[in-house]
């Protein structure tokens, strides 16, 4: 008997003749009090992200040129003039940077390690938990480019901000490679005290626009 058949037979044997379980009660909140993009949610999101030690830049405008200025303003004090960006981000977002690498999938990990920053969009953001979701698409890029560079500048449009985790998960396609980001890389492994900055990007700059 193959291991597969053996394990499945063991499971069926262990469960007995008529395994049943009661229906799952879903009395928890499926939606928050506020609609996507509500000002209350933006305030909550900013509070959560700052709690995680992310840098938040709030701009009222949502045109691509204003976003591009905010990206450059965020990177300038860090003395970063070079960034990689996925093919689907508007060119204006990186228009003020001296050196822009548009990802064509050819850069390997070592090449990415020499690029100090990455500029991407996002697909949905959950305010209550301060969680930004990337889906590996044209706006977010393949996973490696948002991982290896040390600074991640991520654009979150206010209209994509929802309140709760269930609302966030409903808006993404599960078969895409998803990355849920809640602040910069961190660890609690030393005396269960949280410190930021381990293997992922140590700087997370979130530009909340609109």
């Amino acid at each position, binding site marked *: 008997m193959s*291991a597969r058949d*053996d*394990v*499945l037979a*063991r*499971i*069926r*044997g*262990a*469960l*007995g003749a008529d*395994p049943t*379980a*009661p*229906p*799952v*009660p*879903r*009395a*928890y909140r499926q939606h928050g009090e506020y609609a996507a993009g509500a000002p209350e949610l933006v305030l909550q999101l900013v509070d*959560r992200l700052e709690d*995680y030690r992310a840098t938040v830049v709030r701009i009222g405008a949502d045109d691509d040129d204003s976003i591009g200025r905010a990206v450059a303003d965020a990177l300038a004090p860090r003395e970063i003039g070079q960034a990689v960006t996925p093919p689907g981000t508007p060119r204006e977002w990186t228009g003020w940077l001296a050196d822009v690498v548009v990802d064509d999938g050819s850069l390997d*990990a*070592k090449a990415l390690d020499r690029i100090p920053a990455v500029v991407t969009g996002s697909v949905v953001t959950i305010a*209550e*938990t*301060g*969680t930004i979701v990337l889906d*590996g698409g044209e706006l977010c890029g*393949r*996973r*490696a480019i948002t*991982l*290896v560079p040390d600074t991640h500048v991520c654009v979150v449009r206010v209209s994509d901000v929802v309140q709760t985790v*269930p609302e966030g*998960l409903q808006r993404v396609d*599960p*078969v*895409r*490679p*998803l*990355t*849920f*980001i*809640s602040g910069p*890389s*961190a*660890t*609690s*492994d*030393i*005396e*269960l*005290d*949280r*410190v930021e*900055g*381990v*293997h*992922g990007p140590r700087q997370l700059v979130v530009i909340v626009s609109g």
Partner: protein
Amino acid sequence: MSTFLGMPGGRTAGTRGPAADPGVGHLTGDRSFPAAAHDALANTQLRRNLAHATSTIRAKRASVVAEVPDWEALRDAGSAIKADTMARLPELLEQLEANVIARGGTVHWARDAAEANRIVTDLVRATGADEVVKVKSMATQEIGLNEALEAAGITAHETDLAELIVQLGHDKPSHILVPAIHRGRAEIREIFAREMPGVDPLLTDEPAVLAAAARTHLREVFLRAKVAVSGANFGVAETGTLTVVESEGNGRMCLTLPDTLITVMGIEKVVPTWRDLEVFLQLLPRSSTGERMNPYTSTWTGVVPGDGPQDFHLVLLDNGRTRALADELGRTALHCIRCSACLNVCPVYERTGGHAYGSVYPGPIGAILSPLLTGLTGGDDPNDSLPYASSLCGACYDVCPVKINIPDMLVQLRAEHTEAHADTHRLPSPEAAAMKAAAWVMADEGRFAKAGRAAAVARHGIRRGKPRIPLPPPLNGWTASRDAPAPAAESFRDWWTRTRGGSS
């Protein structure tokens, strides 16, 4: 196979699968819990480290759980989803397998630790690589994968900070979430200074400095690694999606950069639908690290062309899980999402630490899960002592995000152990003999009254909580660590007969 005779609340539903082999992997220690705990309690540094770490995490958890208005509804849903999963486990695993294959992955099944180790070793060998990077994974700890790879000439680099501290310190993990919880910052600095090649000799014990040292140390390894091995927090049957929940980004590195990814997942980690993650992604981070959300959660479904590993293998592991599954109460131990909240609130764990439990699963959940996976012998096997490593205070049940009734399970396992002991020993244990004698006395009114009067006489043998004459074994075992209460001069029954409850 022994037959479980039953206790209120514990019932065998079906045929037990085989127990995990305690000789492979790390499900059993080499000493009983009391013996190991005795040494741990004498280590004041350990107790200070544990008290500090567990009190920090308890406060954080309590604060972020309190701000969730529907926490109890989430726990109810989490518990019910897991119960539903167990009831439909064969079909869900087949569905998960079909979806992983449909998206370009390969699925393997392993009956036990040895088979899983063999599968992973062969897969790594086939790539030609002589090293792998690892995401922290309880399943691979359980089966002793690192040792198996090492025996095959393959170096396994642990990349989680706490796992790295354990690996560099030639130590054993002592906590599900933070395997190096028993180490303070000064000890970690010492380990890094001693074991990390090329580390800055001026390294301080600031956590941020130590984290930066780990980043530098592992960076080159991540960038060159061709093969990664991970566990999985959840596997979604409906879509074939695997999930890893982490903080540092070492998980993302392993799941993204290498060409080949091998994921070892216990069969109980499957969940029916994508929607179910909306429950667990709320329960898990708040219960484990006390954060609203962990920094990084990665999900992937098979192989994505041009993004991440192009060769993906999922190894589904039994290793005693079908043994636990056969028991209606024991089955609920498989609901565990490995958050470690029960460890952090346990008064026993806080004092003894995780090494005393022997198994990679320490604390309250380990005290039930380890013996459920390996079986109880009724003899002196170290895991036989684990169900007694509890005061049954119930704090673990209160914090469990999926409402596993650990105290009830501990009581059932104690009964099972007693019965197994009776089956394997000609003479009853001293405890069983004492209970039998007590039952005989208490079954008859006259005998009980006489026993009460006899106890009043015995009180002269006890002074300030200690017997005047040392008691013979096994009674001295009781009085070694406890006061012997002196019986009252008059039994309650005699007092009642004399005074009518104080009315005369």
